[in-house]
């Protein structure tokens, strides 16, 4: 009996490890290529490990395109998006979830309706608004529309709704106003929700492609995803350089993922249960 279980487990491990290989090989291939010379990257048959680990591709990318600036742009727009979007969503979620005021349900329904529509529908008018604001080709252009999220509001509202009503009633009797209740009592209690939203938003802002590509076209104003895409156009055959760019572009989120993997995975797992 025990033996057959062991064999079954071995079999399961073999399938799972095959999956691991398929998942991980492209990442390894990216890293190995990024440390090769241009010549070695085109060797036939290909070498697996670089014969000498070179940093050429990494240094070259900083001199070929304003990569440091692009990196900084991405960090700024991601940080601003995360901070403001999470703040706005959490506030709104508290309002919708726990305060009564006229037309609340109607307004909330309007907010939710945004969730039902594929994002491309908004792109052309959003582009024109940003243009009329004179913000094309600036960092704020990248993050402004992303500061307001119906998804984030909906997610956080779920967390507020799950807290017991008595919490506030006691605080109101003690003479706290709504803002004190929000800051001192509620925020600490919805921390898991905030962490989830921070992760979702950071990942989205860091990886976003179409919108930043549309609004910012000069090389010094780009964020990472569009900049990587131009790398392909200009240096189409310089694979080590492309891979070096890819390594640096994906690293921050992957590091973040390894640190907060529990929160990453739980956040996603919950999306299925709540949805």
């Amino acid at each position, binding site marked *: 009996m025990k033996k057959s279980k062991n064999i079954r487990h071995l079999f399961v491990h073999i399938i799972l490890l095959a999956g691991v290989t398929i998942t991980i090989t492209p990442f390894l291939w990216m890293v190995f290529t990024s440390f090769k010379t241009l010549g070695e990257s085109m060797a036939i048959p290909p070498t697996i490990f670089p014969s000498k680990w070179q940093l050429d591709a990494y240094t070259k990318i900083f001199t070929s395109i304003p990569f440091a600036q692009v990196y900084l742009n991405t960090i700024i727009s991601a940080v601003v998006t995360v901070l403001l979007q999470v703040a706005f969503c959490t506030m709104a979620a508290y309002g919708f979830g726990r305060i*009564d005021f006229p037309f609340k349900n109607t307004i909330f329904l309007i907010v939710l309706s945004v969730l039902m529509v594929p994002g491309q529908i908004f792109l052309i008018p959003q582009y024109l608004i940003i243009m009329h604001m004179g913000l094309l080709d600036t960092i704020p252009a990248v993050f402004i529309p992303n500061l307001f999220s119906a998804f984030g509001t909906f997610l956080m509202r779920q967390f507020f709704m799950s807290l017991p009503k008595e919490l506030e009633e006691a605080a109101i009797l003690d003479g706290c106003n709504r803002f004190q209740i929000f800051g001192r009592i509620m925020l600490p209690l919805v921390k898991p929700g905030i962490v989830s939203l921070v992760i979702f938003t950071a990942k989205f802002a860091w990886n976003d492609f*179409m919108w930043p590509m549309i609004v910012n076209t000069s090389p010094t104003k780009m964020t990472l995803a569009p900049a990587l895409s131009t790398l*392909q156009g200009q240096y189409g055959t310089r694979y080590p350089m492309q891979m070096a760019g890819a390594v640096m572009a994906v690293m921050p989120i992957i590091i973040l993922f390894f640190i907060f993997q529990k929160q990453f995975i739980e956040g996603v797992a919950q999306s299925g249960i709540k949805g």
Partner: protein
Amino acid sequence: MAEKKQQVKVPKKKASRREKKDWVAGYLFIAPVTLGLLVFYIFPFIQNFWFSFNNVNKFNMATFCGLENYSKMIVDTELYQTLWNTLKYVVITVPVGLFLSILLAALLNSEIKGKSFYRTIYFLPSVTMSVAVSLIWKWIYNGEYGILNAILKVFGLEGQNWLSNQSTAFYCVMIVGIWCSVGYNMIILLAGMQGISKSLYEAAAIDGAGPKDQFFHVTMPMLTPTIFFVMITSIIGGFQVFDTIYMMIGKTSMAYESCQTMIAMFYRYGFEFGKKGYAAAISIFVFLIIMVVTAFQMWGQKKWVNYD
């Protein structure tokens, strides 16, 4: 309880001072999101609809043209080609992706060692920037120096230019799409499996059900709401596929036409050809198709999704 409280409120007197203070606080809390969504999403939604009845030139001046964009769209073979491609993408990637993620979730939903290791690795592609993923896979598929052809050669197989061959390019992009999303969906499905009550399995075991019977007669039926959720989100995501296609299949590729999706077409008309009115009409078309498909799913779910 909650209902009772509301009933007490119904014979409305004038709102008390405290209630009014609450109203003000409520409006202040929701103001940033509500105003932001109005300006950057709800107003644009209406404007986009309006644009679809306009010619919008390169300088973004709109002139009303009635149904011209739509009548052009109805006879545009390019639109039907992209619609066909998009449908093909959805019809292939969604079932294959779903099958693989259910399989992996089922394998991980046992008393196996290294569970969190597997989960972490499988989740990795879904946090990775799609543009970077596309660059990596483009390099893997490369016809001359790519690792895929080198591996095939070891097994004595002839490689080829995967991404410029019309009969393979689109499938190669689909593989990348599946590679990106399987781990993510697996996490959701695994959470669904873990939420199934142990007592159901115990009852099934008492009735003599083996692991296989338990999977097909307990796990799968109980998992249908989660499967439905994953399916709906995957289908909607599939209709909006853009990044990988745009990155991997260049304009000069022989396979260009056979790989363009509706959103790629929308992007080109809107932001490369400067035909924003026509692009707006395309985006409305995509929206309508997604709505119809989703409504169809919602209707169809009654036949196979279990809700207790």
